[in-house]
């Protein structure tokens, strides 16, 4: 059984597949479209959300009995925003290069509906440890989809992975480019992220019929 009880482990594994925040709950789509043109950006965003959602869920959970219900959304928003800004400031002071990579994501993290969604749906009604696991689980589920989408978009759109050319040189016509392959620039456009996410949803639902809603 190990470190986690079965119930606790489920909090982490559920969002990875059968209750994935992007493909099942369809949350956080906007940031998934915006930043998945590159694998590196997808990874950085995944880590950033992991951090914010893990800590934010704990903070909200600790405050859950004293938050006035009338302004709870505003309180949640303030917690996320404050957390993100503090992290950004600390990085600017001690890891300047990293903070430059992250600066684009600060706004996207604050508005990510997965974070607000988990605060509202889970942290307000559960203890800190459970909330922490739920935050980590959902952030991982989000990161997995981001990385899959980023992998295909960068590979097919730019012919690179993490910025390293893997298919040859498109200008010198080496590698697969020598037999007439071309990068599909359309993969770099946001609509293609939507289509890739759609394909993932399709594959996932055809493998697990329980996910298909009745009509």
């Amino acid at each position, binding site marked *: 059984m190990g470190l986690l009880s079965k119930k606790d482990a489920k909090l982490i594994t559920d969002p990875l597949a059968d209750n994935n925040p992007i493909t099942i709950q369809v949350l956080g789509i906007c940031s998934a479209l915006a930043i998945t043109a590159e694998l590196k950006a997808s990874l950085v965003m995944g880590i950033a959300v992991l951090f914010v959602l893990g800590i934010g869920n704990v903070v909200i959970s600790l405050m859950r009995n004293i938050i006035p219900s009338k*302004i709870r959304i505003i309180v949640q928003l303030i917690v996320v925003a404050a957390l993100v800004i503090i992290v950004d400031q600390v990085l600017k002071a001690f890891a300047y290069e990293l903070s430059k990579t992250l600066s*684009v994501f600060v*706004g996207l993290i604050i508005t990510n509906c997965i974070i607000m969604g988990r605060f509202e749906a889970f942290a307000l009604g559960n203890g800190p440890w459970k909330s922490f696991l739920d935050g980590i689980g959902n952030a991982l589920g989000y990161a997995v989809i981001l990385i899959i989408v980023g992998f295909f*978009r960068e590979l097919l759109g730019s012919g690179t992975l993490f910025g390293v050319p893997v298919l040859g040189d498109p200008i010198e016509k080496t590698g697969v480019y020598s037999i007439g392959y071309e990068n599909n*620039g359309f993969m*770099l456009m946001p609509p293609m992220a939507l289509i890739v996410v759609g394909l993932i949803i399709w594959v996932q639902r055809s493998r697990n019929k329980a996910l298909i809603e009745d009509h």
Partner: protein
Amino acid sequence: MAVNTDKNSYTIIFAIAMVLVVGSLLAFTASSLRPNIDENKRMEKQQNILYAMGVNGNEGAGDITFVGTDVVADEFSKYIKKQLVIENGDVKEDEEAYLIDIKKEQTRAKNGGTRRLPLFVGEKDGETFYIAPIRGKGLWDAIWGYVALDKDMVVKGTFFDHAGETPGLGANIKQRYFMDDFYGERLLTEAGAFKGITVAKGNADPKNEIKDDYEVDALAGATITGDGVSAMIKNDLKLYLPYFKTLK
């Protein structure tokens, strides 16, 4: 807890307390980290200027490596021979010209004031570089850069950066293959008039071997950012033309 969290008075008190706590927390973080952040920004400017004139730690083809933060101050004083400020045609030396905020200068010019133009004169291997800062608008936010020129306003190196362009698209102005394309491009026509460099789509010269076409190849999916780069090169570097004429 036995508090009635639905009462209006409780809500208001909670809101006020939250604002005070979060506000002071943020203020404390910001002010205690300010010296570190300012120092980082100062070093970054020096690194960027040196990068544009080719003083950097690049090894591989895709590398963008600045000189280390531990040596940047020494390298800066070693390679940058003069820091000039051009104001209304008057050229003055100023040891802190690299700290001039281009955004403020642009606003001042827009409001009818005169704009101070910083220019850094660097020397490396017997070659003289004139490095000018530029700043403009991308798709989402500001873009800026440093362009190293020789005395005929031929580009000898560039560095571009951005505040929030889309990763994988507009953010690629910060990639080596984009920055390096500018090397050798001319800003002036044969007659000596200012023409600038356009980031052009459908360029017939994707390897960028033709150096007198006043064009570099655009980035896929980043039209507006590319136009921003063309515009900041044209608008900001044009202002230096009178100074370069005095060099002849």
